[in-house]
């Protein structure tokens, strides 16, 4: 089963809607609540990254009995140094964003921590692709 969603950059008001929709689909299918929580947290973090740093992103949710995968393809500035971005607390969010509690630099590390596999591909000036995998036990 697969389903697509869209996230608009800078849409702070709407942030969280995609992760909430994904969560509700997974709940209806009947996955384990703890498993869903990992996916919800990861998707929410990824969604916030798009809102803060990109123009827009396409999100694809793929569900099979063994694997749930969320792929985010964004049009944005890209990540120049992925290793650095994966460090706790590293952020390129602006002061204003951080004052509002966003961009604490925990996004990618948090996704990494909550998922089973995280693949990042990024081209500076073009965009970033996150493929986040969760294996069903």
């Amino acid at each position, binding site marked *: *089963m697969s*389903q697509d969603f869209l996230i608009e950059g800078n849409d702070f008001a709407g942030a*969280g809607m995609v*992760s*909430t929709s994904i*969560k509700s*689909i997974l*709940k*209806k*299918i*009947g*996955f384990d*609540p*703890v498993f*869903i*929580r990992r996916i*919800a*947290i990861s*998707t*929410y973090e990824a969604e916030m990254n798009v809102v803060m740093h990109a123009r827009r992103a396409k999100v694809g949710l793929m*569900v*099979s*009995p063994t694997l749930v995968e969320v792929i985010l393809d964004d049009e944005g500035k890209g990540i120049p140094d992925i290793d650095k971005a994966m460090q706790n607390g590293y952020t390129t969010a602006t002061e204003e964003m951080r004052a509002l*509690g966003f961009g604490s630099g925990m996004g990618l590390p948090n996704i990494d921590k909550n998922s089973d596999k995280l693949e990042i591909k990024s081209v500076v000036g073009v965009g970033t692709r996150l493929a986040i995998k969760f294996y*069903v036990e």
Partner: protein
Amino acid sequence: MIKYFHAHRVIREKCMGHMTCMRRCPAEAIRVIRGKAVIADELCVDCGTCISVCPSKAVVAISDIFEGLKKYKYKVAIPSPVLYSQFEPSIHPYIIHMALKQLGFDKVVDIFFASDTLSVVIEKYMDDFKGRLPRISSHCPATVRLIQVKYPDLVELVVTLDAPREITAREIKENLPIELGMDPDDIAVVYISPCPAKIVSIKQPAEKARSWFDGTVSMNDVYSLLFPHVIGIKETFDISMVPDDFYFSADFTTFAGKNWSSRIGNRLVVTGVDHVMKIFDDIENSRLRNVNFVEALTCMQGCVGGPFAPENPYIARSNSYKQKSLYENIADLDERKIIDQYKNGYYNLENPVLPRPTKYFDGDLVTSIKRMKEKNKVYQKLPQIDCGCCGAPTCIAFAEDFVRGETELMNCIFLSQKVNLNNWADRENNQ
């Protein structure tokens, strides 16, 4: 399969098939089938929205009518604090006790003492607590059901302390038979409830085998009987009639249990089921990072907004503020003793709150995923305007009902119209 008890039902003869309840039910538990509303037992969270919104007043309470209580020799009423706020502030709260006695109760006990006690307990609980945050208060049973049905991952956040009403009832059940030298089975402890959820929590508790109450009555039912007595007593009432130990604390109603946890930092109060669901979504996305304690009440404005409370909740709240300033009389609490009791587990819920598994697409993961896919396909064919004419609240819900085999595609008027038009076209072509 467990059969779920609910404290409300649809009177078929009165139901005009308005669909208001179907659209507003936050659990999407209502369908309109052949012009009548039908509630799905396993999905209903007892929030009472359907009762409040039904234009024909076709959704009504099922509560123990006084008849059923006649067999008891001694009857104790425990009113929800909301009851006082239903009367204007010139009515002394003690008048309401007197009126309840005229209705046939032998004793009236408030839950104020237990709720003030629990506010001490909950502070201690939060001080000691080291696990996952935020904690969610457990005293709105509709909130607890909502979590069990729609937010299974959040059950572990529910505060494991019992509600003030249960603690009060338990103390009566334990002490009164000894005090009166009576058989406990001859004493009835009855709750006067502003909402169906509390009635259900007494008939079918989420976290224990049996409630300490013997019965419940809806506040609406009591109010109508009580009103003439209240007016009558007021005429001859004199303040000297109030006993010295009369205890009154309106905090519980003035704002959503303000005194609960007032010293707890970073708390959040949310009322109204839609708003509660938004907050729960935020918790699930781990977005609520700086809040330790969430008090979530599914009725707008909290318990004063209960569907069985006759007065407008805004007026009730305002009454409550005035009553607090006029009549408040709080005894000193023995905090040391309370904390000792707490440490001995006295205030704990008897059993943990567990998720209530509701299967949207019954079956295993494989079947379920297949049905989700099929649902998406069906949904694509629908007009996606949520008109409700099919009897389901949204096109998505209709598509889900269809893959579960509970409805036919032709119940969508748009699809059936298309088929009819095609049939017409075919006929014309064949002529």
